[in-house]
């Protein structure tokens, strides 16, 4: 989608006789033509997010001449934001991003009319009517759920949306306009990477497997237990072939305190009073010895080496705690060091549990030191067991916390491009808009209800026929629906369709703590809304590009996405779904011009 900026000189160029006419007609306000400058001062725009991209964007908007800006962000300021979110200073840590951003901008542009909301854009107060107040919406978000939501609201309100994202040195800007371009959800987005249970529980081969295991362990011991987050050896591992003769060996190797298969990890831990040494020996010795009896696993792999608490502490203490010139977090300790860290963190977490009272559960948070210590220690001990090089707390935190590296310059460039696109988008109101019947998300239920051009089409036009299955979710992303279409000649007169089956339940209780865990894990790509106003969560902007270059840390699955209860997203893994994505020819050639990927 490209519109040309009007210029008095364009008129002369269009008319050959006057091609080299004197450029005397233009009136400039700074670098802009007067008409454009005037339209900027009257239009209203919404900026969703006041973080890395948001701060830069707000600055660019007011300096360009936009006067009426509303900005919304549910987060508060963290010290790790200060390397790029330049509207914030150290003294602002803990305060509302939207609010402080507004105040900072007003200091250099007091005439700007800025409204700040310390709130979630997914709050129902911000309904379609709210969105219709604006001529343009610009996303400066870091999570998929919010992006999906704003995408839908802008489609419903028919307001142009400029979508963007950054991660490290990469960034992207896309304009989304109903009826002209495909929307944010038209293309399936990469989902979080997940690992098979047996890899996590039996045969880890990379540090990330050990880190995921350690996070599961945290939840099993201190947090909400999840059936999909088992940490004990997986006897159902398809690689293991059961041999009756092994039974005796297994029995000997199994935990002295009972059959580990019948007692949950948490119950077992409770029964020992969360004794760190007993915990250590169970996890890193007994369970490992159990794994060793599953000898098929180790025919082609290096077998794990169990650790024993007492033996470790009898070894000569090496230079593990050497402090050198390094930062604490950057050091890689030895086995003794991580054993000690394990011991300390278990005791601290145990106290936290006791303090919270009966039935209490902790939520893992990368910025909570004992929680992070625990995962660092447990993951490293497991890495050691499986002969992997151990990692510093710094590195573990990156992977466990899904931290996406971020710098000021990438955000600055992307925010600059956003405003340039904004100018073009707004300017298209002066031109004739091309009337293009670009179908967008033709199978999203809500489009059919608000008079979208599809109403006159038949399902068969979209490749839908008797026996087709449609996967859909509702507007607010509360439900995942699998709809089987059966043709029937037996419906009553004037009845066009009939729904047979149970009304779906809203995703159960898991949705609340699931969000909580995902937030605390910094797992922004999980399409769960970040609703925490405390925002211990990672605030970094997320790259929304289907790129092979996406750093592995950002596609890591560390939490609940492997769960069967996970809400499915638009995976488009059926042929039917693929054929429904009608895109007219106009599109892809022009698309890339609006995107600059920078290295």
């Amino acid at each position, binding site marked *: 989608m490209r519109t040309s900026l009007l210029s008095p000189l364009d008129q002369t160029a269009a008319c050959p006789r006057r091609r080299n006419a004197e450029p005397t007609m233009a009136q400039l306000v700074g670098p*802009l033509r007067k008409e454009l400058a005037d339209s900027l001062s009257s239009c209203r725009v919404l900026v969703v997010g006041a973080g890395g991209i948001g701060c830069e964007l707000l600055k660019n908007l007011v300096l360009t001449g936009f006067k009426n800006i509303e900005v919304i962000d549910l987060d508060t300021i963290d010290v790790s934001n200060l390397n790029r979110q330049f509207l914030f200073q150290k003294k602002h840590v803990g305060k509302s991003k939207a609010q402080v951003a507004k105040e900072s901008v007003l200091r250099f542009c007091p005439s700007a009319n800025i409204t700040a909301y310390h709130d979630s854009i997914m709050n129902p107060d911000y309904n379609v009517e709210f969105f219709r107040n604006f001529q343009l919406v610009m996303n400066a978000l870091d999570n998929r759920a919010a992006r999906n939501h704003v995408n839908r609201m802008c489609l419903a309100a028919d307001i142009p949306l400029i979508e963007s994202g950054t991660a490290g040195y990469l960034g992207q800007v896309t304009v989304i306009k109903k009826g002209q371009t495909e929307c944010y959800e038209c293309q399936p987005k990469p989902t979080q990477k997940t690992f098979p249970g047996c890899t996590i529980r039996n045969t880890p081969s990379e540090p990330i497997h050990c880190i995921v295991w350690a996070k599961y362990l945290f939840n099993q011991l201190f947090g909400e237990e999840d059936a999909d987050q088992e940490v004990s050896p997986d006897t159902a591992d398809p690689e293991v072939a059961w041999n009756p003769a092994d039974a005796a060996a297994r029995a000997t190797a199994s935990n002295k305190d009972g059959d580990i298969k019948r007692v949950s990890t948490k119950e077992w831990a409770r029964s020992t009073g969360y004794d760190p040494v007993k915990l250590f020996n169970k996890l890193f010795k007994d369970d490992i010895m159990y794994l060793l009896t599953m000898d098929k696993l180790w025919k*082609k792999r290096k077998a794990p080496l169990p650790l024993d608490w007492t033996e470790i502490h009898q070894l000569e203490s090496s230079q593990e705690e050497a402090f050198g010139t390094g930062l604490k977090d950057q050091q890689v300790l030895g086995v003794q060091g991580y054993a000690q860290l394990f011991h300390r963190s278990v005791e601290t977490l145990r106290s936290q549990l006791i303090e919270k009272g009966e039935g209490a559960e902790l939520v893992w948070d990368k910025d909570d030191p004992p929680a992070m210590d625990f995962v660092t220690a447990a993951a490293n001990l497991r890495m050691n067991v499986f002969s992997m090089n151990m990692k510093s707390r710094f590195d573990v935190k990156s992977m466990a916390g899904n931290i996406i590296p971020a710098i000021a310059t990438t955000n600055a460039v992307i925010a*600059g491009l956003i405003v340039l696109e904004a100018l073009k988008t707004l300017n298209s109101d002066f031109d004739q808009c091309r009337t293009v019947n670009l179908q967008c998300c033709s199978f999203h239920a809500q489009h059919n209800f608000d008079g979208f051009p599809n109403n006159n089409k038949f399902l068969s036009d979209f490749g839908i026929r008797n026996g087709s299955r449609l996967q859909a979710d509702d507007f607010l992303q509360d439900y995942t629906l699998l709809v089987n279409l059966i043709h029937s000649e037996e419906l009553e007169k004037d009845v066009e369709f009939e729904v047979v089956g149970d009304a779906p339940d809203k995703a159960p209780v898991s949705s609340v703590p699931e969000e909580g865990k995902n937030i605390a894990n910094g797992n922004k790509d999980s399409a769960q809304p970040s609703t925490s106003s405390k925002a211990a969560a990672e605030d970094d902007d997320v790259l929304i590009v289907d790129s092979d270059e996406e750093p592995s840390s950002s596609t890591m699955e560390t939490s609940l996405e492997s769960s069967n209860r996970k809400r499915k997203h638009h995976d488009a893994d059926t042929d039917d779904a693929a054929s429904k994505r009608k895109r007219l020819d106009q599109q892809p050639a022009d698309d890339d011009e609006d995107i600059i990927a920078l290295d």
Partner: protein
Amino acid sequence: LALALSRPRGEDNIISEEEAAQYDRQIRLWGLDAQKRLRGSRVLLVGLRGLGAEVAKNLILAGVKGLTLLDHEQVTEESRRAQFLIPVDADGQNQAQASLERAQLLNPMVEVKVDTDAVESKPDDFFFQFDAVCLTRCSKDLMVRVDQLCASRNIKVFCGDVYGYHGYMFSDLGQEHHYVEEKPKVVKGSNEANDGPEAKKGKVDPNETTMVKKTISFCSLKEALEVDWTNEKAKSSLKRTPADYFLLQVLLKFRTDKGRDPQPDSFAEDSQLFLQIRDDVLETMGLSSELLPNTFVSYCFSEMAPVCAVVGGVLGQELVKALSQRDAPHRNFFFFDGLKGSGVVDYFGSK
């Protein structure tokens, strides 16, 4: 005035826990070594208008050791509206001085200084105290002089400007710029031919990377601007040459002749002059005026804030790369056309 010639280059730099917390997200990108080198670097930034303010912000946030803001001009309403560091009541003050307070607040760990002299008046050795210099709003002659002075002393030289919707960046990192690139380590499989994907050597971490050392050489600004377009080889490459290169030449000439950039206040007169200079410059180069159609003119006035952001971002990142000696630098021009939304890196000068 004798100045110390030693420039700390990152040795003995200890990053404090406070810095580690603040710089965490960038350390995770470019590493601790790069951050240490930044932390030991002193930079001179000339010109505090829209582009200058962006570069200042980016360098201060990155955590250089010191940044000197040099500008002899006074704040006007127009210049104040172009950037975000100058307070509203600062009209009439020196531009660099007025920018100081907000610049310093961006990151108290950086030593931000102000110099209100005209850059032309500075003696040669003034520049030697810096690891990198960034020149904005400077005349061609000044830029060529400073570039010649600095490049031979391994002081990294950058030039940049924004004019309306257009902007450029030039860099001269010297004859031998050394840097490192992080590449993934190639993991060798185990020796047994029958092994499946699970069979890895116990101690190999497939996620490990390795640093590869490289060297690259740059030509001078003088060479880059004095490309001979009359020979056949140059003529054949004309099609691929961004028009912005010629636009830059025209604007530099305007700046030299008029002592200022085109101003909205004198749009009619400046547009005329611009077109005339275009004709002169292109004719001197043996090229046609059609390379720069008339339409360019009205988009070259003042500074577009988003274009300052883009060019300032690229320029800032190139400075970070050069000072930290990490990652391949752009060589040697970056042109940005805000109308098209397109940026291009291109090389001009001897190969």
